[in-house]
Structures are given as C-alpha cells and as structure tokens.
C-alpha cells in the first residue's frame, strides 16, 4: 500500500464533513432546499462558494422536488451535481428519485437520516432512505463524520463509473453524526481533486438514425437527443433490466474505489460493502447500519472480555445489497441478530432483517435470525440494550416458526 498523504485534522460535525467533501470534489452544480438536520451542509457550501473557496453554481430552489429536478437537469447536461436532504424532503423528491436513476444521471445526494412525519420528529431513524431503497439509487451508509466525508468523495467516482452510471445516496445519521463534532481528517484539495477528477460523461454509441456517432451521454445542441421520453410495454422492461444489471456491476466498482481511496487516505471500512468487527470466529453476529454499529463495537469488546464470542457486521451498502458477502460471513455462525432503525409496517420485520434472512435461505445450515426494530424517532440505543440483544442472540439456537422480532427501547 502506498504511503497515505499528510492530512489536516479539523473539528467538524458530520454535515460539515460532507460539505468539505463536496467542496473538494469539483462539483459543478449544487441545488438544495434547507431541512433539519441537513441544513448545515448547504449553509457551509453557500459560505464556501461566497468566499471563493468552491467553484460551483448554487441553485436556490423552492422545494426538494425542485432541488432534485435541478440536480437532474444539471447532471444530464453533463455537470457534476450534488444535493442533500432529509426525511420529508426526501419524500417530496420521490417522483424525481426514480427519474434520476432511470435517466442514469450520476447525481450524488447526502441524506441525513431523520424520521418521517407524522408526528413531526427531527431525530434519527432510517425510515426516509429505507423507503427509497427500490428507487434505483446506490445507498451507502456512514458510521461517523469521517466516513461521511470519505463516502461522499467516493460517491462521485462510483456514480460516474462507466460500468455503473447510477445516482448515489450517502447516508449519515441525523444529529448523531450530522450535528456531533468529531476530529475529521481532511485530505489536501489537490489530492481529492485528482482522485475524483472532473465529470466526463460516459460515451454512448448513437443509434442508426442519428448517424451511428459516438457521443457523450448528455444533452448537447450539437447532437440533439432525447433522454427517456416514452416507453410502453414494448421497451420499459428492457430499460429496467439495464438498471438491474448496472446495480449488479456496482459492488465491484464500490470495492475497487474504496480500495483506491484507502491507499491515499489510509482509511478503509471492511471491503467497502460490509464492515465486520471481530466476526471471524464469532458464534453470534449482530448486523446493523449506521452510528449504532459504532456503539456495538464497544459492546462486542465488552462481551469478548466476558468470554462471549460475539462479532458485529455493519452494512455499508444497502443497495446494492451484499448478499454473497453476508452469506460468507454468516455460514458457520450459530445465530444472527439484525438491527433495523426503521419499521416496515405489516411486514415480518424491518427491511434489513428481511433481506438478511432472505440471503441466508440458500445456506445448508441456516442460523436462526432474530430481528430488532429500535431507535425510531431518535430513541436512544444505549450499550446496555445492545448487550442484552447480543446475549439473547447468542442463546438463540433454533429457527422459530415465525421470525422473532423485538422492539428494544419501546415502552408498553
């Protein structure tokens, strides 16, 4: 591994770390609408642009629907576009989420996870981004402010990679990461600039009637094209298939870019898809997403000291879902616990629980999987509760008839 470069230690909260990443990533256009707990990202970016520290156009729009529409327009005009939102803002973007992904526009968006209304709640859970899991966006979840910075930089490379060409959401937990000050290592401007480069739209071969030219996939009056005007039962399915295939190619690209970034920064998070902690010889594994998995590491250490063989696995990419990697880690484990920070009302468990359990179906010896829905609306997840969960998972031996799903932290 090459020697990593000299970095600057700064005290930043998660939102500021994301703004720093955007500042350094040669972003052409930023369009956003303020919403707690995302607002700091856009405030910092506005300051950077005002102070001449960031060379981007900022578009102040009247809603999140417009924020993503403007980002999409910029992106298909060939620009590198960045936006950020949270909770109800993401919900208002709903229509455009699918349009951005289907148009293969490599927009990067920070989503600061916050509970969806009603009642209004500004604190963290994953119900906003989990609801968008089928929209065709790559989803990368961060554990802390440092990782939010690292993920945002990598996101541009992943999104624009010629084998992918899909938009990327970078998630960070509202308040727990977004507003929590942390020492963050910031790479030099030129190092990040070299790493991300400038947006070069991928080239496509134009169809016969355009004259069989090869052009960049972008709107340009020199060679007018339409992007996604109309598809009925004759071609819509084929275009969805292309998105499915692009998602299948994404894990390799995410791993490759994660590795390349690790070489310059000295920081890595598992293989880029999963971040396991003391998982190799574990009897029981606890899987989850986001900042809680940082707390979980301390709990794992505590349990290990007591001689209990518990490990943890943090899922970084929920889309694409690392099913193969999860199968590898889970085979030979005697039980699994899955932590979901969102509910899927009427389902057998939370979204992560369902996907993990489904991934394990093809294993010969399937370990029992226990689901836990926790932390809704920012409800605290203290170490003692995590410890209790881990001990319960450790003692689980048989697959129950119906999945066991608990709700740690809720009052009856």
């Amino acid at each position, binding site marked *: 591994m090459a020697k990593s470069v000299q970095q600057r230690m700064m005290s930043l909260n998660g939102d500021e770390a994301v703004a720093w990443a955007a500042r350094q990533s040669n972003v052409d256009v930023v369009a956003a609408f303020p919403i707690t707990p995302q607002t700091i990202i856009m405030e910092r970016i506005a300051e950077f642009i005002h102070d001449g520290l960031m060379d981007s156009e900022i578009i102040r729009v009247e809603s999140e629907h417009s924020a993503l529409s403007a980002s999409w327009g910029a992106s298909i005009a060939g620009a590198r576009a960045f936006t950020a939102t949270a909770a109800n803002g993401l919900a208002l973007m709903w229509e455009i989420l699918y349009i951005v992904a289907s148009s293969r526009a490599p927009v990067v968006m920070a989503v600061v996870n916050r509970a969806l209304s009603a009642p209004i709640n500004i604190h963290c859970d994953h119900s906003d981004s989990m609801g968008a899991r089928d929209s065709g966006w790559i989803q990368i979840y961060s554990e802390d402010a440092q990782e939010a910075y690292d993920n945002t930089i990598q996101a541009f490379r992943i999104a624009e990679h010629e084998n992918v060409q899909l938009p990327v959401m970078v998630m960070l937990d509202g308040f727990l990461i977004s507003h929590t000050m942390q020492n963050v290592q910031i790479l030099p401007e030129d190092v990040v600039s070299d790493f991300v480069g400038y947006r070069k739209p991928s080239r496509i071969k134009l*169809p016969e*009637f355009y004259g069989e030219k090869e052009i960049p*996939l972008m709107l340009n009056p020199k060679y007018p094209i339409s992007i996604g005007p109309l598809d009925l039962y004759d071609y819509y399915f*084929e275009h969805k298939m292309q998105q499915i295939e692009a998602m299948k190619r994404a894990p390799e690209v995410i791993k490759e870019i994660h590795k390349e970034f690790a070489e310059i920064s000295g920081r890595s998070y598992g293989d880029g898809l999963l971040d396991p902690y003391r998982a190799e010889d574990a009897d029981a594994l606890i899987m989850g997403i986001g900042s809680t998995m940082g707390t979980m590491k301390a709990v794992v250490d505590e349990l290990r000291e007591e001689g209990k063989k518990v490990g943890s696995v943090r899922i970084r990419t929920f889309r694409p879902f690392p099913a193969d990697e999860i199968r590898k880690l889970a085979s030979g484990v005697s039980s699994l616990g899955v932590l979901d920070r969102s509910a899927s009302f009427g389902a057998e468990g939370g979204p992560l629980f369902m996907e993990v359990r489904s991934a394990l179906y093809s294993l010969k010896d399937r370990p029992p999987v226990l689901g836990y829905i926790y932390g809704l609306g920012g409800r605290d997840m203290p170490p003692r509760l995590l410890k209790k969960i881990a001990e319960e998972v450790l003692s689980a031996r048989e697959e129950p008839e119906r999945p066991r799903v608990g709700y740690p932290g809720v009052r009856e």
Partner: protein
Amino acid sequence: MSALRGWKEIPIAGIPFEPAVKYKTGDWRVFRPVIDNEKCIKCGLCWMFCPDSSIIWDGDNFPTVDYEHCKGCGICAHECPTKAIEMVRG
C-alpha cells in the same frame, strides 16, 4: 417497425433508437379528416393548428393528411374557415 430488440441492444437511459415518426399511431383514430379541395383556399390554418404535424402542405398545392399519424382530433376541421374539412368515421 423492425423486430423488438433486447436490453443489450438498446442505448441506456431510455434514449430512443428509432425516430418517433416510425411509430404508426394513425390507428388510434375514430374519425378521419377529409379535405374537400373545391372549398379549400390553401390558407394553411389546418397545417398550423395540427398538434401532430399530420397535415402535409408545401405552401403551394392543396394540403393532404398523413393518415399514419393523424389521431383524428378534429382541430383542423374546427379551424378551417371555409368548412372544407369533414370528419368521417372509419
């Protein structure tokens, strides 16, 4: 239209690989416009108003209708100042 293509054979992002005029949409129609050249004064209003560019007109001769794309909306008949266009079923 040519044979339907597979997902590996078409451009991504929903970029059309055939021009829209290749789609024959005239069969959506219930009534078709029929131009009576006896009454037509070649004013060009039907050509201007047609929302689907289905009136073919060179500016000199009598206009004709592109029945492969005309949807039969009747706007041309409505706009015609000399009532030279009749909407006929079938």
